[in-house]
């Protein structure tokens, strides 16, 4: 059931360019793809180790800024993406090793505080080194020619770009499908990891650290390894997002509110399930992007009734979002996927 939903969502994402033709839908679909990777990588960390870190967006940011600065300074080539992104990934891994080792030295709450501090430092650093990072304004750059909207993938006899089901086969479509394919591959890779011997060890460590250690699993090593794996996936998600957006700034990849968002997505989807990542990302993104529209429609439809149009006023969307979270957490205490997958043993 849960995995059925996940498959339907991926199918929907695959077909989205042909189902929805507006620019905003494509933006949302691409964002959902990238965030599935980001949230799944965060779930690897939170759900499989129980460690809550607020520094996860830094890994995302390192990948994105790595690719972005390279594209800016080296020009719009694939080499820039590989080199810049590669440097970003390496930096993310180094940071992950430090944070991972720290997480074993200090208590859970204190660790979370430290990651909060590290996250704020990262935001400050980005605005300080504005020559390099673009500061608050971020960086805009060009991407490889294949992804330019003006690029024609297929042309008819007149030299016009071919349309399928009303969708132009242009560079934008190539960019979307690159985002989609990369995200799907990365997501499948993470599912594979969760079901690997390493994944079983992680579940054991999450369940009972002392016993896992006693039967011969070095908890320090495994924890640090998860931190690194999780950081690599987050960084790659960052690279993909940077290439898709052609812009990288604190608001898109680094801000604290992104970390809160992905935490919410993991919790609402269901920690430690991987399927939850997909469900959480889709729900929250749809809510963030479309709740206001739906409320607008609702308010207009009920315009003649008392009070209801007032409540459905699009300005109150945050109130409704908050209310729905509370209800979700109440009815699905282990997250949506988590609660649905739970074996019914008394």
């Amino acid at each position, binding site marked *: 059931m849960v995995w059925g939903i996940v498959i339907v969502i991926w199918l929907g994402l695959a077909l989205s360019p042909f189902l929805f033709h507006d620019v905003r839908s494509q933006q949302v679909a691409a964002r959902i793809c990238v965030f599935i990777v980001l949230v799944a990588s965060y779930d690897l960390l939170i759900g499989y180790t129980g460690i809550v870190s607020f520094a996860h967006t830094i890994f995302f940011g390192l990948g994105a800024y790595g690719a972005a600065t390279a594209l800016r300074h080296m020009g719009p080539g694939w080499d820039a993406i590989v080199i810049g992104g590669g440097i970003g990934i390496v930096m993310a891994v180094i940071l992950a090793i430090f944070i991972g080792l720290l997480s074993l030295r200090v208590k859970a709450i204190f660790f979370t505080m430290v990651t909060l501090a590290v996250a704020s430092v990262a935001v400050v650093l980005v605005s300080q080194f504005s020559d390099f990072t673009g500061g608050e304004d971020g960086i805009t750059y060009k991407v490889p020619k294949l992804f330019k909207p003006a690029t024609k993938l297929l042309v008819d006899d007149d030299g016009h770009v071919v349309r399928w089901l009303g969708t132009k086969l242009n560079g934008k479509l190539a960019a979307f499908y690159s985002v989609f394919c990369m995200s799907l591959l990365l997501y499948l890779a993470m599912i594979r990891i969760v079901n690997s011997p390493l994944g079983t060890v992680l579940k054991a460590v999450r369940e009972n650290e002392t016993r896992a250690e006693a039967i011969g699993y*070095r908890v320090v090593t495994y924890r640090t390894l998860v931190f690194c794996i999780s950081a690599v996936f987050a960084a790659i998600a960052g690279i993909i997002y940077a290439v898709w957006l052609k812009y990288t700034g604190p608001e898109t990849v680094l801000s604290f509110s992104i970390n809160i968002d992905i935490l919410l997505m993991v919790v609402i989807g269901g920690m430690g399930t991987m399927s939850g990542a997909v469900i959480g990302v889709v729900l929250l993104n749809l809510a963030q992007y479309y709740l206001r529209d739906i409320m607008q429609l609702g308010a207009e439809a009920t315009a003649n009734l008392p009070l209801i149009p007032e409540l459905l006023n699009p300005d109150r969307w945050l109130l409704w979002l908050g209310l729905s979270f509370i209800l979700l957490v109440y009815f699905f205490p282990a997250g949506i996927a988590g609660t649905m997958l739970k074996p019914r043993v008394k």
Partner: protein
Amino acid sequence: MKTPSDLYTEDLTIQFGGHIAVNKVSCRFKPNELTVVVGPNGAGKTTLFNLMSGQLIATSGKVMLGDTDLTRLAPSQRAKQGIGRAFQLTNLFPKLSVLENVRLAVQAQAKVGMRIFTHAKSLKYLEQQAYEYLSQTRLEKVAHLPVSALSHGDQRKLEVALLMAMQPAVFMFDEPTAGMSIDEAPVILELIDQIKQDSSKIILLVEHKMDVVRALADRIIVLHNGELVADGEPEEVIAMPIVREIYLGNAA
């Protein structure tokens, strides 16, 4: 396979604040010998085990396995050296299935834990080995239940199955039959007896029941207030006045 070596401690001590829980214990355990550790509640038996298997790190003194100094090693590193430990208070993976619990212990031996792109289920031989330990401990029927659904007796058996699955050189049992019913306990004692048949193994057993002690012990050591107060042949130790006074007197 390495030639089996002795496990020994030198002046092993641990202090919790002002309280010395294990005090300068020096003791040697040899292969082909089952040593029963006795002593009243709070004597430091479990703490001594924790120091040897690594859950606690000594304040001073040493733990050695042959030429290898274990004193500062993490429990997992000691496990790789051959130290196996079962716990007095059941210490399992409660939400995982019984099979998965044992499979994890088998897997730790197989050193495949770092493989990230192999499907765990594809390593069939691990599961087969796990089933062997489950049948030895008579747990096949509950193999697919989560541990939290098991009876206390079955949980104790699983505790032993995990220890066996580690294939250690040193078996440390901490009151393995505690709280088990009279008809369940013999399963565990038979298993311990079976392990005894392998002359390369060192076995340590904390046990209160005197009939069990008499039936299994090659040697008895007595702890009292963290100190080693007696060490010798079972009949000899049981006859010692100090033992009668501090241990048998209390336990009777």
